[in-house]
């Protein structure tokens, strides 16, 4: 989800351009629909996706491709939110309905699915896949469709309609370097390794780690890898030669398992810190599980699903009751959280008298302290800033639900403000 497919870039751009042309030529754009919005009996202005009875939302997800497990978790969690919301009377006196479209992690299918559903929805609480999000960026901006992507690259900031929840990958790595220097004895003059995926995810993460390391007087040795690299023996050899005191990893779960397993077996028992997408509960069933439990930490802007936070516990209990047998992973939490945040924006928009798309975006952006009880409060008011500057530190535990337990409570990432200022200038 977090790795833009290299080959897709060009195709994506061409497709986006073609779609834009098509839409412009046929004049069937959602913008035109936006103008056709009227006023309902209750005095609330409406627009595409909103009728007197329903508010329709859209999800572009992956139910048949590589992220099918994650996609299913998010779809189920958001459906649960919709059911709960409707049971409590809906939003603005209207029922919430979510139209789910599967794109199987295929950008072309996603673009087609977007064209299909976008005229009839008011917001997108879920879009999976960095390449998909990248392909649709201009469209959601033009259509003023409030979108919650399941991707966290800093390049997604600065778009009025696109809302990345929590921290971006660079901030995660700044938090990781802070964690290492604060609690794991990494000192000035030490060397740390950073294994990262090519593409937005890795590049953005490396930006953060390099900045934080420079501040701490630590040297970063990068090792760029691809999503198909699942044997990281050579990378471990290289990092050992550099004498690294710790390793950061911004890749997928398979890479994390290989890195930690190989490092431990070769006697390189140094702390490893991963971004949230680098972990999955299944890892605790691989041969690397003991090494992961001993060496790995995960920085995440969301708490573990095993967290004792009342909001998380209530949601997880409800989810396990409704979808018995489905795994409870981080997708459940992030999906439910995004839906709740969107719901809050919709309620605000309703109170302000309009559910037209632009007004939903406006109402959403007016929230400076959106708190769903599922982690840290989010500030959506500055489109150029990440919605949160706080992070949790989690650690693997084979017995815990979701395979992770909390190691450090949410805290503000030291240096984040300074980094953002430096990045802006």
């Amino acid at each position, binding site marked *: 989800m977090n790795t833009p497919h290299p080959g897709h870039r060009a195709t994506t751009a061409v497709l986006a351009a073609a779609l834009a042309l098509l839409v412009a030529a046929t004049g069937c754009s959602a913008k035109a629909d936006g103008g056709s919005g009227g006023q309902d009996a209750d005095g609330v202005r409406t627009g595409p996706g909103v009728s007197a009875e329903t508010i329709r939302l859209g999800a572009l997800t992956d139910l048949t491709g590589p*992220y099918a497990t994650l996609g299913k978790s998010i779809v189920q969690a958001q459906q649960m939110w919709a059911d709960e919301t409707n049971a409590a009377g809906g939003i603005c006196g209207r029922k919430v309905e979510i139209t789910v479209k599967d794109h199987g992690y295929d950008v072309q299918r996603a673009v087609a699915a977007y064209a299909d559903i976008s005229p009839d929805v008011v917001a997108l609480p879920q879009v999976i896949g960095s390449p998909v999000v990248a392909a649709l960026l201009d469209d959601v901006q033009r259509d003023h469709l409030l979108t919650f992507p399941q991707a966290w690259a800093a390049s997604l900031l600065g778009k009025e309609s696109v809302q990345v929840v929590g921290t971006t990958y660079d901030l995660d790595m700044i938090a990781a370097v802070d964690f290492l220097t604060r609690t794991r004895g990494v000192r000035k003059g030490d060397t740390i390794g950073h294994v990262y995926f090519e593409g937005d995810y890795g590049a953005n993460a490396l930006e953060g780690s390099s900045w934080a390391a420079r501040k701490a007087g630590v040297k970063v040795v990068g*090792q760029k890898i691809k999503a198909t690299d*699942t*044997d990281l023996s050579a990378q471990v*050899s290289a990092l050992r030669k550099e004498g690294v005191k710790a390793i950061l990893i911004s890749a997928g779960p*398979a890479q994390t398992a290989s890195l930690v397993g*190989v490092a431990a077996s070769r006697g390189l028992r140094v702390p490893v810190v991963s971004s949230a997408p680098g972990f999955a509960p299944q*890892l605790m069933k691989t041969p690397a599980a003991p090494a992961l439990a001993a060496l790995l930490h995960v920085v995440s802007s969301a708490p573990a699903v095993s967290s004792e936070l009342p909001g998380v516990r209530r949601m997880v209990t409800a989810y396990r009751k409704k979808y018995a047998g489905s795994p409870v992973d981080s997708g459940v939490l992030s999906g439910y959280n995004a839906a709740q945040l969107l719901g809050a924006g919709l309620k605000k928009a309703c109170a302000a008298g309009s559910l037209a798309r632009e007004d939903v975006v406006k109402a959403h952006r007016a929230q400076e302290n959106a708190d769903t009880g599922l982690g840290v409060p989010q500030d959506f008011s500055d489109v150029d800033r990440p919605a949160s500057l706080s992070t949790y530190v989690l650690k693997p535990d084979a017995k815990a639900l979701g395979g992770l337990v909390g190691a450090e409570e949410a805290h503000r990432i030291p240096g984040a403000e300074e980094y953002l200022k430096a990045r802006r200038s």
Partner: protein
Amino acid sequence: MTGLLDDLLGGLALGAVYALVALGFVVIFKASGVLSFAHGSLLLFGGYLIAVLHDDLGFAGALAVAVLATALLAGALDRLLLQRGDPGPGAAHVQTIVTIGVDIVLLTELSRRIGGDLLPLGDPWGDAVTGLGPVTVADSRLAAIVVSAVSIASVFALFRYTRWGLSLRAAGEDVEAAALMGVRLSRVRTLAWCLAGGLAALAAVFLAAFPAPGLERTTGQIALKAFPAAVLGGMASPVGALAGSLLIGLTEALVAGHQSELSLLGEGFADVAPYAVMVLVLLVRPTGLFGTRGAARV
């Protein structure tokens, strides 16, 4: 020094895994002149079977079933799909393209089943390692070295000392003459495909075992790294496949191990290096390390 030893040993072990895959490419190419692009998904098919069956049958049982089933699938693919096409000149090229289609179909279905999962194969080595002096190597990789050496020796012996091998080589020299001498071409060929299928399932074990975390939907794509190895070796020689694979494994390990010194070439050069080596070798020896002059190339 330890670093260099580490890289060398890691490279050899990686090369041994590639060799099992490259051997499959070579056997198929020698028998049918087809470059099988379906090899990666056949490998994934074998690995997937082991992953689902090992709980019930134990690792050895699952492996046996998977090797057999993948061999049958590969044989059926050749017999039912490839051999039924027009046998005229250029048929091998058409069949090569058909394998691309087969690969897409198989891969799509397997990806759908595997999804984002990481499937353990239940192999007996786990994450155990053996120390050899100052360096360590994973037991699974030691097993890979032994298994690929034995496989390559067996295939070599099969080619050299059996009737089937004789027929295969005869067909490789001159198809028409071989047919006139009573060689049952289609059976010889299908058997070669079966052999390659079995080897693919075997290779899946070592591609998914530690240091890799398990079978993923992308495991089959790793097989493509063995492609330059097979080309390097001359496409039709089992020994060449071994030499090519070791060369590719060493290149990858050494380049990744010295990435910081090679930063001039850009990071992530380790992924490109095998192909760069392939091009360089082909510039000097256009038929590959162990290739024969005039062999058809795809």
